[in-house]
C-alpha cells in the first residue's frame, strides 16, 4: 500500500460520524434510537458507505480465517461430523456394505472418486441383493453340471477299462459292443505250444518256438472286421517264414 494511500487512511474521514456509529454498533455498544436511525439512514442513502461496510465485514472474516489455528479448523470439522452423524442416527442410515460417508467427507481423494466408488458399490450391492431363488437356481445348475460331467467321465472310464484287452489300434469296425467282443474273445485260448509244435512238425517252419520268441506274441487275438478270432495258424506261419527269411 503506497504512502499516499496510508495517509488517506489516516486522514479524517468525511463519513466519520457514520463510521463512528458503525464502530460503536459492531463493538456491541448500545445505540440510542437517534444513532440507530442515523446509521440506518447512512446505510440506505450512502451506497459507498454501505458497500464499504459489507466489504469491511468480509475482510474481517478473511482475517479471522487466515489467523485460524489448526485446532480451530478441526473444531469446525468435528461440529460438521457430529451434525452428519446425528442426521444418520435420526434417519437410521446404516450401510455396512459401503464406506461411511463421514469418511468420504474427511478424505478429499475419496471425494474425488465418489462417482467411481459409488458405481462399484452399486454393483456389489446388486450382486449381494440378488433374490434367494436366484442363488438356489445357480446352485442347482452347478450341481447338475457336476453330476453330468461325473457320469460322462465314469462311462468313458468304464469303456476304456473294458477295451483294455483289445488293441485299440485295430479297434472293431461295426456296431458290436466291447462287451460282446470280450464275450466272444473269452473262449479263445492262447496259442498253445502244442499248436506251434504242430506247425513245425508240418515242416513249414524249421525253427523251434523257443528259438524264435517273436512267434510267441502272436497269441494276441486279432480283430478282423466284426469278428474277433485267435491268430490263425497261417498268420503264424507267415510270421515264422518272414523271420526265417531274415535269418537267411
Amino acid at each position, binding site marked *: 500500500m503506497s504512502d499516499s494511500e496510508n495517509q488517506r487512511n489516516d486522514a479524517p474521514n468525511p463519513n466519520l460520524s457514520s463510521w463512528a456509529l458503525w464502530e460503536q454498533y459492531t463493538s456491541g455498544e448500545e445505540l440510542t434510537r437517534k444513532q440507530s436511525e442515523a446509521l440506518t439512514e447512512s446505510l440506505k442513502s450512502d451506497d459507498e458507505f454501505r458497500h464499504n461496510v459489507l466489504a469491511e465485514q468480509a475482510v474481517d472474516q478473511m482475517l479471522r480465517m*487466515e489467523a*485460524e489455528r489448526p485446532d480451530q479448523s478441526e473444531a469446525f470439522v468435528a461440529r460438521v461430523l457430529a451434525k452428519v452423524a446425528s442426521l444418520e442416527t435420526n434417519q437410521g442410515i446404516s450401510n455396512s456394505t459401503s464406506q461411511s460417508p463421514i469418511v468420504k467427507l474427511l478424505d478429499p481423494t475419496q471425494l*474425488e472418486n465418489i462417482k467411481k466408488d459409488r458405481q462399484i458399490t452399486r454393483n456389489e450391492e446388486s450382486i449381494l441383493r440378488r433374490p434367494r431363488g436366484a442363488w438356489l437356481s445357480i446352485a442347482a445348475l452347478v450341481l447338475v453340471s457336476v453330476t453330468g460331467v461325473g457320469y460322462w467321465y465314469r462311462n468313458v472310464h468304464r469303456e476304456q477299462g473294458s477295451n483294455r484287452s483289445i488293441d485299440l489300434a485295430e479297434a472293431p469296425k461295426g456296431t458290436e459292443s466291447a462287451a460282446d467282443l470280450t464275450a466272444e474273445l473269452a473262449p479263445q485260448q492262447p496259442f498253445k505250444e502244442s499248436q506251434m509244435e504242430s506247425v513245425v512238425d508240418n515242416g513249414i517252419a524249421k525253427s523251434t518256438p523257443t528259438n524264435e520268441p517273436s512267434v510267441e506274441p502272436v497269441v494276441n487275438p486279432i480283430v478282423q472286421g466284426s469278428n474277433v478270432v485267435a491268430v490263425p495258424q497261417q498268420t503264424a506261419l507267415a510270421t515264422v517264414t518272414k523271420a526265417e527269411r531274415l535269418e537267411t
Partner: protein
Amino acid sequence: MRTYHRDVRLFVARFLGNDPAAEDVAQEVFVQVHRSLDQFQGRASLKTWILSIARHRIGTWFRQQSRQLRTKSLDVEADLVQYRWQAFQREELAVGEGNQSGLDPDVELGQLRLCLQKLKPLQRELIQRFYFEDATAESISRLQGRSAGAVRMSLLRIREALAKCIRKQAAKVTHHE
C-alpha cells in the same frame, strides 16, 4: 472436508459478513454435500460443485431471513441482511450472465496476504496482535495508551483499506483475463 472447509467458510463470509449465522450456514453446506454425494457426476470440479451448493444454501438462508425480518421492526441488522441479500443477488445475476464477478476464495485469500504486506508497520502490528495473537482491543489500548474505541476504529479503517486493496487486485486479475 478438511480441504474445502476454508473455501466454503470464506465464500459464505463474503455474503453474510460477520453474521453469527455464517458458521451455521457453512456447516449446513457440508451436511448438504453429504446428502447430495450421489448427485455429484464429476462434470465440474468438486470445489465448484461444493461452492454451488454453498451458493444455493446462502440464497435459501437469505429468503428465510427476509421472511422472518418482515415481521420484525426494522433495525440496522435487518437492513444489513437486506443489503447483503441485494449484493448476493447482484452476484447471482452476474454469474447467471456468465460474468464470474466473485473471486475464488483461495485467490481472494492470496490477495489479502499481498495487501497485508503493503500495510504500514504499525497497522500490520495491530492486525497481528488482534487477529493472530488473540489480543483484545482493550489489551492493545492499554499497551498503546489509547482508548479501546480508537483501537477498534483503527482496525476498522485498516480493514476498509484492505478491502479496497483486494478490490484493486481483483480488478487487475479481471483485466488480465
